[in-house]
């Protein structure tokens, strides 16, 4: 008999979990009974936009994701691309927009923490980070506070963790007044034949909980990330998560050490909707069932319910399937780093997702259906309003004055004040720091010459004027920035930030931008190997500019031949190339 914590499943409760009537009906059909409160929480976590990609999946499938160098495309924690000599670069970009608006420092910090975890979960040591930031008008009352908090948070986490930040973007536009964008990119280096994946293998194997303890942080957070903001935003505030870069740095070292011992069969980071998504993904991808014993989960707060534990977004945690013979070795490594290590479950062969708490079963669900049967929508699209034409250009314009206006504009000014707050030099391999076209980082463990270039780009104005062309342009600009430093562009990740997909014009923008990105990536042989979608960036009906950020990675055979953008000497010839 399933235990239901004596909470009645009412239509209001269902709605407050972001599930609509059809979705709930589907749940009833799938499980043949009313869900328990914990189960409802699990479904809401798995089926919200953030985890299920229910509005975007149809369009994401159109992107080119394969190529000669692609080892793992979308579907894993991060994309993996071959960079010769048996080495691979592992990278991804992810948004933390809503949390950063609510609490800029912690929101941005935990965003950086999350993306770094995605990278090192795969066995890669992070070697570079970037951040693409968008804020409202410089004179808007909230902007100053948001900018200083976000920049300090990005730096606070990345600097302490110890990864160089080598690039990014900062832009201001009134359309972001109520919804700022914080997109964080991270890349790591791994041996191409030692990549760790999330699919569980083997029946009856222990599932281990690693890292920090579970608190009530962000309970309901993933649902929040998929809901439009209203004026009741204050009420959602206590769900803020606090980042702990120190614990994450220990987690990195412990994981990499552990992976060397051969103890790790599968591993998955606990991101949004923590324990639920990670456990379900590990089981479902491996065609196995999972049984979790919540009484063994390390907790930070007293009297946590099963519901809270399953939905907690506490940071700096991971889940792994362990080779039982290596349990002692694994435990010793985690204890050396002062991290929690607890066996909290096992794999089963019945394809069920069972959660046991205080001696009772609080959830028993078909594990594959949680992901596979998640709703998928082909949301209606409608032509977006045609862009207004630019006015006549005054040919008598004072060029010098115009230039001053441009460089004095918040969007044209130097970003030095931002990147000087980031450690751009740590690890000793940064051969090109922010300020140029792309950041360049030397690759260790090869011939000492090889390097990787990183750039993140998008011009939202163009995307609004013409989403398809704007999508193409973002890819082209990123590709150009990589080639401009002398790198061969290899592959990219995307972070698609849009408004409310339930509005047909937004859906049209979204789908067209993806098609544009796909066109350009195909033409340039620049596959998309990972990415993230952030929808519902809208407050009181005002949506952000469509902002599909593209993060690209390129390869340089010899960093000494790298290009930089400064003029080198007097009397040099200036050439303009291109159309």
């Amino acid at each position, binding site marked *: 008999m399933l235990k239901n914590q004596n909470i009645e499943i009412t239509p209001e409760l269902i709605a407050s979990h972001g599930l609509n009537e059809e979705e709930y009906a589907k749940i009833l059909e799938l499980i043949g009974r009313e869900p328990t409160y914990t189960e409802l929480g699990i479904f809401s976590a798995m089926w919200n936009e953030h985890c299920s990609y229910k509005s975007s999946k149809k369009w994401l499938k159109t992107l080119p994701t394969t190529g000669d160098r692609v080892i793992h495309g979308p579907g894993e924690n991060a994309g993996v691309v071959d960079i010769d000599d048996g080495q691979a670069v592992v990278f991804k970009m992810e948004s933390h927009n809503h949390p950063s608006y609510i*609490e800029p*420092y912690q929101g941005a910090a935990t965003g950086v923490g999350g993306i770094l975890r995605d990278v090192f979960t795969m066995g890669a040591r992070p070697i570079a980070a970037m951040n693409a930031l968008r804020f409202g008008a410089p004179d808007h009352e909230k902007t100053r506070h948001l900018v200083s908090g976000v920049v300090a948070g990005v730096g606070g986490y990345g600097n302490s963790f110890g990864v160089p930040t080598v690039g990014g973007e900062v832009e201001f536009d009134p359309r972001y007044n109520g919804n700022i964008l914080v997109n964080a990119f991270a890349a790591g280096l791994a041996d191409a034949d030692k990549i760790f994946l999330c699919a569980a293998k083997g029946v009856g194997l222990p599932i281990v909980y690693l890292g920090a303890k579970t608190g009530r942080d962000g309970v309901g957070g993933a649902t929040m990330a998929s809901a439009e903001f209203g004026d009741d935003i204050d009420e959602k505030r*206590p769900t*803020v*998560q*606090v980042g702990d870069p*120190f614990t994450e740095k220990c987690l990195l070292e412990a994981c990499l050490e552990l992976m060397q011992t051969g103890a790790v069969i599968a591993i998955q980071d606990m991101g949004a909707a923590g324990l639920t998504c990670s456990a379900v993904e590990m089981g479902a991808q491996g065609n196995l069932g999972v049984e979790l014993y919540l009484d063994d989960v390390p907790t*930070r*707060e007293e009297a946590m319910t099963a519901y809270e534990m399953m939905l907690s977004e506490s*940071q700096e945690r991971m889940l792994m399937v362990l080779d039982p013979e290596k349990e002692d070795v694994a435990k010793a490594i985690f204890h050396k780093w002062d991290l929690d290590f607890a066996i909290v479950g096992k794999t089963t062969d019945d394809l069920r997702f069972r959660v046991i708490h205080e001696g009772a079963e609080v959830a028993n669900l078909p594990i594959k259906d949680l992901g596979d049967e998640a709703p998928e929508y082909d949301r209606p699209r409608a032509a977006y309003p045609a862009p207004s034409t630019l006015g006549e250009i005054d040919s008598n314009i004072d060029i010098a004055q115009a230039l001053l206006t441009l460089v004095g504009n918040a969007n044209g000014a130097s970003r030095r004040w931002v990147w000087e707050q980031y450690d751009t030099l740590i690890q000793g391999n940064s051969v090109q720091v922010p300020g140029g076209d792309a950041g360049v980082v030397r690759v260790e463990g090869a011939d000492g010459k090889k390097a990787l270039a990183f750039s993140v780009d998008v011009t939202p104005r163009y995307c609004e004027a013409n989403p398809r062309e704007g999508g193409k342009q973002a890819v082209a600009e990123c590709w150009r920035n990589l080639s401009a430093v002398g790198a061969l562009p290899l592959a990219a990740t995307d972070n698609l930030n849009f408004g409310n997909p339930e509005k047909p014009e937004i859906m049209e923008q979204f789908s067209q931008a993806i098609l544009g990105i796909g066109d350009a990536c195909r033409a340039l042989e620049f596959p998309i190997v990972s990415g993230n979608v952030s929808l519902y960036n809208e407050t009181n009906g005002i949506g952000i500019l469509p902002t599909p950020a593209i993060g690209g990675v390129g390869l340089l055979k010899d960093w000494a031949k790298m290009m930089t953008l400064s003029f080198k000497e007097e009397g040099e010839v200036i050439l303009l190339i291109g159309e």
Partner: protein
Amino acid sequence: MHARIFVTLKNGVLDPQGQAIEGSLSSLGFEGVDAVRQGKIFDVKLDETDHEVAKEKLAQMCEKLLANTVIENYSIEIVD
């Protein structure tokens, strides 16, 4: 007038600093420490004689700058 403002983390908000301190105290051999939470104080010298007016002003400073009310609580004490 001197006032002291106390800013502490709300219940349930993770306090990595407090945790690290707890760990360090125990490795230094201090036993029986069940929990440590770290907070801030601001000692403010104000050009104001009316306690009520001062308190009101200080509360506004907390709301606007000194406390991050998303994750922190504050309280105010007039010292003299």
